[in-house]
């Protein structure tokens, strides 16, 4: 019964936290998704020289804790306060929510770029040659053949990355963002009511499950032209 009481007393705060968590994850993932395709193309087909800075960026992001990246941007920006003020950017960096979205976008972009690069490189060369043979321009080959196919191949891995980002978004609570984790810690520190952690866990799992279902539906739509082509049981 204590479990239910905790929920009855705290549901507005927890729900508000869920909203913030979804906003953090959604905005971070979306910004990353916009920046990733050109970077992935560069990573797949660019010259070694053009790729070098991209490789360093991806290696750095993958080799450092996201918490350290968050501190570097949120606290680190304080060291350049005067410069940022003169640029008019200080109000942006003073807000922990903005910093968290920025860090999540930069972080997820590195992972999404690598995933999408794998998808681009997995497109059968024959399809690209076929496009060229019927007179498609380079751009049209990318738009009509390479990217649609690459996204279909990369789709499950991209979904995994967004789930990882949602889990990582709980770190924003450390820089005082009141996402689900932040609200949970706030409620616990005031009431020492341990069952609030149970509800936080249940809500995180519920978000993951909803996302997985939606992502699968989208995947089915992306491959709707292929239904009926493979015998049942074979994928």
């Amino acid at each position, binding site marked *: 019964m204590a479990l239910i009481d905790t929920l009855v007393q705290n549901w507005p705060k927890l729900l508000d936290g869920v909203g913030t968590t979804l906003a953090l994850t959604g905005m971070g993932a979306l910004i990353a998704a916009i920046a990733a395709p050109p970077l992935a193309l560069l990573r797949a087909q660019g010259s070694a020289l053009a790729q070098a800075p991209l490789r360093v960026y991806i*290696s*750095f992001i*993958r*080799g*450092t*804790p*996201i*918490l*350290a*990246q968050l*501190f*570097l941007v949120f*606290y*680190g*920006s*304080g*060291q*350049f306060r005067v410069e940022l003020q003169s640029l008019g950017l200080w109000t942006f960096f003073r807000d922990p929510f903005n910093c968290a979205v920025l860090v999540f976008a930069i972080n997820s972009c590195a992972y999404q770029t690598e995933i999408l690069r794998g998808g681009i490189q997995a497109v059968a060369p024959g399809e690209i040659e076929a496009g060229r043979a019927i007179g498609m321009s380079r751009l049209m080959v990318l738009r009509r053949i390479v990217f649609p196919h690459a996204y279909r191949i990369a789709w499950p891995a991209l979904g995994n990355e967004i*789930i990882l980002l949602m*889990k*990582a*978004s*709980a*770190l924003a*609570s*450390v820089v005082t963002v009141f996402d689900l*984790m932040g609200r*949970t*810690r706030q409620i*616990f520190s005031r009431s*020492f009511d*341990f069952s609030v*952690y149970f509800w*936080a*866990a249940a809500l*995180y*799992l519920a978000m*993951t499950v909803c996302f997985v279902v939606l992502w699968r539906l989208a995947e089915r739509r992306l491959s709707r032209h292929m239904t009926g082509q493979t015998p049942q049981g074979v994928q």
Partner: protein
Amino acid sequence: MFELFSYGPLGWGDEILSGLWVTLRLAVTTLPVGLLIGFAVAGLSLSHNRGLRALGVGYTTLMRGLPEILTLFIVYNGVGLLLNRGLAAVFPDAGPVEFSPFAAGVVALAMVFAAFAAEVLRGAFLAVPEGQIMAGRAIGMTPRQIFWRIKLPQLWRFALPGMGNLWLNLLKDTALVSVIALDDLMRATKVAVGVTKQPFTFYLVACLIYWLLCVVSELGMAKLEQRANRGVRRA
């Protein structure tokens, strides 16, 4: 600039190095604990008993779906609470004790590591070709002999790439324990920032140290993989 990172009372070099030492100790202590639990969970998910299998699958699904920081807080606060409640029941006049953050860190990180490791190990067990097991049976090996002589020696080779990634994740996840007041690399950096007011410089150095650890780990892993595959014919 460089005196900031020198040894002794003026610089922060020694503090950061002792933080790094805690980070490394935490990761190295967690690894065997996590592997042990991981083996147990993999055993459950491969079991022929439906109930045991559900237990194993349930554990991996739950632990992989929760944010690591939430697991850490549940372990740190929850186990602390349980410990004190149990202690108060046995010794009514004893004061509250503090659950060591290091132990909480090891337990929480090992629980997360185990869930991912169980999946890697399960995949590795299933990757042993069916023909080899049949060959073993054909020459009259018992199931136990097949496990020890055929499956287990090859497990290492199949599990190594996945385990390498999990080790990198573990190294990075150790940064979370700074939130529960363990003096790891991240927290030593925070203390230095509080005094010197140079957040960007110090967090950048922390990031570079984590990056170095990851790059060195990757090189080591490549060597290990080379060694593990030395008896395998390349296609």
